[in-house]
């Protein structure tokens, strides 16, 4: 644990650095392409875009190494490539397929009843078994922590 934290802060190509870079770039783009109005609706929309950019940047920073990041990137790509109509259809189809796969997947530990809840939280966790799910959750928590850290730093930087 300590080594991973040190790794995050000292390694120049760590997840944190990559995420910070990507996120800031996306924010800059957002700022450039969307009008910077102060209406509540605009702020809310921008909030959605920023949140989306944060998740996308995090997933990009992690790359394809993790199942959850792959799932996020796939979702983004599908979202981008389809218009909303097709997207909804595809999402429903995907969900149906996932449900089938879920029923096929053996759920070995009955003590992990609330693992389904975890599956919903971790992107791409629906089709994983418990073992990999815990795996992905650990990495996901780590990345969420770095995400929160970096975003908080950005907010600090801009509000002071």
């Amino acid at each position: 644990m300590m080594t991973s934290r040190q790794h995050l802060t000292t390694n120049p190509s760590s997840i944190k650095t990559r995420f910070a870079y990507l996120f800031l770039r996306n924010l800059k783009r957002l700022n450039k392409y969307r009008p910077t109005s102060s209406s509540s609706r605009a702020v809310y929309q921008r909030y959605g875009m920023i949140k989306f950019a944060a998740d996308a940047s995090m997933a990009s920073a992690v790359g394809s190494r993790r199942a959850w990041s792959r799932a996020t990137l796939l979702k983004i790509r599908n979202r981008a490539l389809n218009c909303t109509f097709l997207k909804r259809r595809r999402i429903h189809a995907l969900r149906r397929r996932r449900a089938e796969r879920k029923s096929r997947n053996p759920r070995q530990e009955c003590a992990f009843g609330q693992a389904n809840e975890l599956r919903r939280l971790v992107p791409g966790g629906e089709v994983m078994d418990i073992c990999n799910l815990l795996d992905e959750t650990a990495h996901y928590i780590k990345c969420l922590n770095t995400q929160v850290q970096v975003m908080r730093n950005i907010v600090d930087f801009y509000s002071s």
Partner: protein
Amino acid sequence: MDMAGKDNLGAEKGNDDPLNFHSPNMSSDWQFIGANLANSSMGSIPTGNPMAASKGDLLEPSSCSSASMVDSFCPANWEQTTHSQNLGFCEINVQHGPSTSNMLGIRTSGLGPIRTGAERTVGIGWTPPNAMLKGGLFLPTASGMLPQSLSQFPADSGFIERAARFSCFSAGNFGDMMNPFSIPESMSPYSRSMASMQGPHRVFSGEGSKTVSGEQYQKIEINVTENPKDVEHGAIEGSPLKNERKTESSMGPHDEPKRCSAVSGNESDEAEFSGGGQEEQSMLEGRGGEPSTKRLGSKKRKRSGQDNEIDQVKGATQQPSEIPKDNAKIQQQGNQNLVSASNRPGGKQGKQGIEASDSPKDEYIHVRARRGQATNSHSLAERVRREKISERMKFLQDLVPGCSKVTGKAVMLDEIINYVQSLQRQVEFLSMKLAAVHPRLDFNIEGLLTKDVLQSRAGPSSLGFPPDMTMPYSLLHSSHPGVIHTVLPGVGNSSDALRRTINSHVTAMSGEYKESTSHVPNVWEDELHNVIHMDFNSGATSALLNGQDIRVSLPQDQMKAEH
């Protein structure tokens, strides 16, 4: 439609980076990994441009140190716990051995295989992209990891556990065990058993076989943790093993490699063992004890279930033939045993008689039935799964703050779920805040990508930044919904959307955290009072200290933006 178009454009822009990074990466993943395998150097690929920066993810496994490489695959805790298990044993030998130089030899040799073994343990359960890196990367970097791993172990709590457990066993026997190099020729059954356990140390110190010693250590570790009674049964089980001992005495150097390879199916181990086994042969014969590895295996096996594993080993090892023939047989045996096993313990045949260590090059999970447990392949596989899951739960326990005292998988899972939800909400709140702050400021990436952004800033956020990450979570444990709600209506003309979002989040969060395990309830109260009473500017600054205050300050920022 214009807005929709613009939305799509914005989405596209937001997607640009992931798309750019993702699609070429998917195809070039393997190439990069292959290149890294070939180079195994850190700076082989430039990280100057963004594309390379994203591809740096793939490079991470082979870049940096081996510790970071394993980190990129798995959290460091896993390897540490695995190491501590194995090294607990090594450490005890180090402490009590008469010749420290030999001990150090054991230690370093033990570290190598353990390190690689741990990596392989970790590497086994990983997604297919990682599978490519397993064989190539781990072995070359084994030696590089030793200095790092050496420094980690003494402070490991797992090691302390093991040390305590070892000391609990039987002091008398351990007196013998702790002197591996002063092994007398003739011994009592107990001391023989203990001395036989020291066999692998001797062998390994003699030849420095890294991989096998790692396996041996793993065997020993599992053995020792199982049951102190194993020590006694070691003598009882002498009879079926004496056959092997005879064969071993005749074949000497082959036994160690035989058993090890039956366990691991690894050729390189045999080669090394056969080279260095001469020493062991003389020692074992002199002792008149059973071969150590065999004993270890037998100790772990149930008496009735012995036959499974013994047969498998014996079937390949009982002939008094020369080394290559045995090796070939063992290879076949090992291959047969391991043929169906893969990342998941689905292979039933392969599970019998194989222990839960990792051979250097195999991807299989080796399980050996412990004493008193069923040797059914199903239950073995189940046990492997349970162990993996508990291992990961332990690691998650370290990740999630405030979970060290929580026991039980269900409660742990609840905590994990809560923590993940809280982190996700924090991200949402921070993005909300950014959205509010955003329009007033211009982004300058070069200016931002200073250390300030990457690390905590001095000043307002330095007050509690290290605990800051845990503060929101711990504070949420003792959330005071009443206080929050009194603050929020007082803000006044915050936007409906913002307030609804904030309220929904707040109620959801306060509904979740029923525990009262907050660390700093007083600080939280003080902060909230500060936020209420101070003016907006300083309020926003001090509000950044924890997530709750961020939510509170959002309406204030909104007001600032509007005015």
